[in-house]
């Protein structure tokens, strides 16, 4: 027991790096997946002879994946709360066809089309949330039904044909870029300005947080961690800004990317800093305890399901705008991409764990993988095989790393709602359990253990 004091120090460096993602127990996992993303980018950059990080390709990756990443934001909240949503692709397609027809045949202006789309998302979400939260049908079933119903509605309303989207302003949503003032520079100035503002904000926010932490005597990460963090982040932002600004004329940072970034900022804030966000985590982590702490569980479940459908509607609109039409096959398989992104991004199958940022990184892993393999000319059949294995590997490593001295996701999954006996001696690889000086950290209960094997 003499080394207990030394142990946390030894692992301090890695843990502090983990704090770059706001601390918490899933941050290390996210750190790992960010590392994986960098490795994948570097690999494809070399393998494709520099094509991966060409401005045109980077813009392409954002454009092609923005809608799935938007879905991943909602999906991670659903999964944190302990549910799943299989209907998002169909809901996106349903929203798309209604908006397209409303604008094309109904002649409604673009902004009314957007409002109609959001309204449909809210209505669909309320419908599914009602079943999940208040009737108590598992989300898997409700959204499986929704997947069929809304796919069918898309084809019923659209007569199973493609409806064109013509409104110029609406087409900007999925296909537009930041304006180009044409100042005679090779780079798109608004994109550069945005990049620099973002970089400055990162620095300012980090040091403001440090100052406030010092003020109340809270623990903050060592200065070098903060410095490394802001320098890295600011550098990435500026490099990215030059990348996006340096594409072919007329292109710059795409509007879908702007929508995505705004949503990420909003939802990262909601999940991390608001009461609602806290409640979502508590419902997924231990709903019994949440209920006994006064959390209105039904309301939270309703909210996450409804929010998901609204975001699915947004994704649907971005997609029809980008593809200039709405068709009967839109959104097929999106739910699986979004779910994969969330799990690669470190969420737990059993709920309670996951972050918006992590899910975005997870989604980018899939996106870069897809893109890189395509650039290398790998056929789509093999791309699918590789994507499947990557998903399995990412979660598999997670499970294995937790098994050696920690709590595995799967053990919680197989015994939901009950704390397993294995948790009694729960330890984490990097942090030793706190042991009281007299050595009595374990405990016994007079109740029969829930894991008693029965005859």
């Amino acid at each position: 027991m003499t080394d207990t004091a030394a142990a946390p120090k030894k692992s301090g460096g890695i843990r502090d790096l983990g704090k770059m993602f706001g601390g918490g127990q899933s941050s290390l996992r996210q750190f790992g997946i960010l590392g994986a993303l960098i490795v994948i980018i570097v690999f494809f950059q070399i393998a494709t002879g520099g094509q991966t990080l060409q401005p045109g390709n980077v813009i392409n990756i954002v454009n092609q994946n923005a809608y799935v990443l938007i879905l991943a934001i909602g999906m991670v909240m659903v999964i944190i709360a302990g549910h799943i949503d299989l209907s998002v692709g169909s809901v996106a397609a349903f929203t798309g066809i209604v908006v397209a027809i409303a604008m094309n045949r109904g002649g409604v202006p673009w902004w009314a089309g957007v409002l109609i789309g959001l309204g449909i998302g809210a209505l669909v979400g309320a419908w599914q949330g009602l079943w999940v939260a208040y009737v108590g049908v598992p989300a898997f079933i409700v959204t499986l039904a929704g997947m069929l119903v809304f796919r069918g509605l898309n084809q019923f309303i659209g007569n199973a044909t493609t409806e064109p989207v013509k409104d110029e302003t609406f087409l900007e949503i999925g296909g537009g870029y930041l304006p180009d003032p044409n100042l005679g520079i090779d780079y798109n100035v608004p994109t550069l300005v945005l990049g620099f503002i973002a970089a400055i904000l990162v620095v300012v926010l980090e040091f403001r947080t440090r100052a406030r932490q010092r003020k109340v005597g809270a623990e903050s990460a060592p200065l070098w961690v903060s410095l490394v963090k802001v320098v890295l982040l600011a550098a990435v932002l500026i490099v990215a800004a030059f990348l996006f600004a340096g594409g072919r004329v007329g292109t710059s940072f795409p509007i879908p990317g702007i929508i995505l970034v705004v949503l990420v900022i909003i939802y990262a804030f909601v999940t991390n800093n608001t009461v609602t966000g806290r409640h979502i985590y508590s419902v997924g982590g231990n709903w019994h305890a949440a209920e006994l702490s006064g959390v209105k569980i039904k309301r939270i479940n309703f909210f996450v399901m409804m929010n998901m459908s609204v975001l699915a509607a947004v994704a649907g609109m971005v997609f029809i705008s980008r593809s200039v039409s709405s068709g009967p096959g839109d959104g097929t398989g999106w739910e699986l991409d979004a779910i994969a992104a969330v799990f690669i991004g470190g969420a737990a199958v059993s709920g309670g764990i996951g972050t918006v940022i992590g899910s975005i990184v997870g989604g980018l892993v899939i996106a870069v993988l897809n893109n890189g393999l395509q650039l290398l000319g790998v056929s789509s059949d093999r791309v699918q095989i590789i994507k499947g294995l990557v998903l399995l590997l990412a979660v598999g490593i997670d499970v294995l790393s937790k098994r050696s001295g920690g709590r595995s996701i799967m053990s919680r999954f197989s015994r939901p709602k009950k704390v397993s006996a294995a948790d009694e001696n729960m330890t984490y690889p990097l942090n030793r359990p706190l042991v009281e000086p007299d050595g009595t950290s374990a405990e016994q209960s007079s109740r029969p253990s829930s894991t008693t094997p029965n005859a």
Partner: protein
Amino acid sequence: MVDAPYILEMRGITKRFPGVIALDDVTLRVREGEIHSICGENGAGKSTLMKVLSGVYGFGTYEGDIVWQGEVARFRDIRQSEAAGIVIIHQELALIPELSIAENIFLGNEPRTPFGSIDWSAVRLRARDLLSRVGLRDDPDTQIKNIGVGKQQLVEIAKALNKNVKLLILDEPTAALNENDSQHLLGLIRDLRDKGVTSIMISHKLNEIEAISNSITIIRDGHTVESLDVKADGVDEDRIIRGMVGRTLENRFPEHDGSGIGEVFFEVRDWTVQHPLTAERLVAKHSNFTVRRGEVVGFAGLMGAGRTELAMSIFGQSYGTVLSGQVFKDGQEIKLPNVSAAIKNGLAYVSEDRKALGLNLLDDIKTSVVSAKLSKIAPGGVVDELREHSIADDYRKELRIKTPTVDEGVGKLSGGNQQKVVLAKWMFTDPDLLILDEPTRGIDVGAKTEIYGIIRKLAESGAGVILISSELPELLGVADRIYTIFEGTITSEILAKDANPETLMKSMTSDKNKKDAA
């Protein structure tokens, strides 16, 4: 009978969990063909001893010898002990509700046809035979969920008989049964004894133990206190109680003289609660009680008496269905339809099961501490994380939670420190009435003493405290006034200074009023 040889001897059994000795040199001798009861308070080590015997804690995880039918047995798991003829029936039945009686009896042990498929005619035939042996006349094809708890108990025994049971271990077999079913079950256990099946029975119902047992072993704090021969030693309930509670009280409770106790501010009248699954079971029956400001009120009762159910049903109806009753606070009737209403009205409930109900083990300490009243530090719905941190840190210092920082996960804390986090979580809600359900279960003596101190401090600050505990010395040492509860009924009310373990145990194990009426 007295001369029958020992079928089972457990010699010098010691079972350690990290930091805790659950059983210390326990000896149990059971003669062939007798009914042997094991008595002791909750947490005395009865269940642990039975888990050692049945191989749940396999050979090598304990010290001492199990001598089964004259030979040292080394059961590594429950299968091996069952193969030797030792079958344990747990308090929580292990039947599958959706399967039929016959399917449950033969689960994992199905008769096969020569082709390897299940021989259903043999299943039914043998099931009928086994059911007749336990006196159950139901169709073996009936689903388990369609028969009552009493009959389910009988199915468990039929299942044991199918395994050629020689020693039947029953853990609280009558806890969930009504009077008739209990009598039938006890009769059956007697019948089985006459047919040569030895039984070990764990029960809190001392009248049953007295009526049915040939001998009794009393366990206290992981030690064997004594073994009694019911006839030869002239054992009665009082004798058993003395053995169960007769330990010396150490001076580990804070001093209190009742000087700071104020007026009655919280009152519950005619509170009746229905079990959430079994409509005919009432877990609280027309209960009335009061709490004064600055007072610690103890709720004494055995496991399953309905103390937790009573408390949780008041705390925002988080258990069962409330059939009747009113709650008054400061003379006004208050409605508590859900937990958030209860918290708003100044109630707090510290659950007996802190891991399953009290904490989200994925959270860190600071998040847990503020979780029951986030609105206090979240103006406009945005959590002020710095205030959260400093508040949690204040509680860390005040309650002496042993952790380097409040950013640590609660899952990593020891039981005592986890409990302090739960206490902090509820102290943060500024409760007027704090209900503590087994607040010291499973935590070591040092932390216990600290928690007693916290409880007294809360009371001195003017809050009312309800302390639910199975440990009588704890109740006597900390509470000002004690209610005893037996089978959902409040059977007595007594000032702690006038109470002693024997009188409490008596009211906890029988309803005096009911007996007089009958």
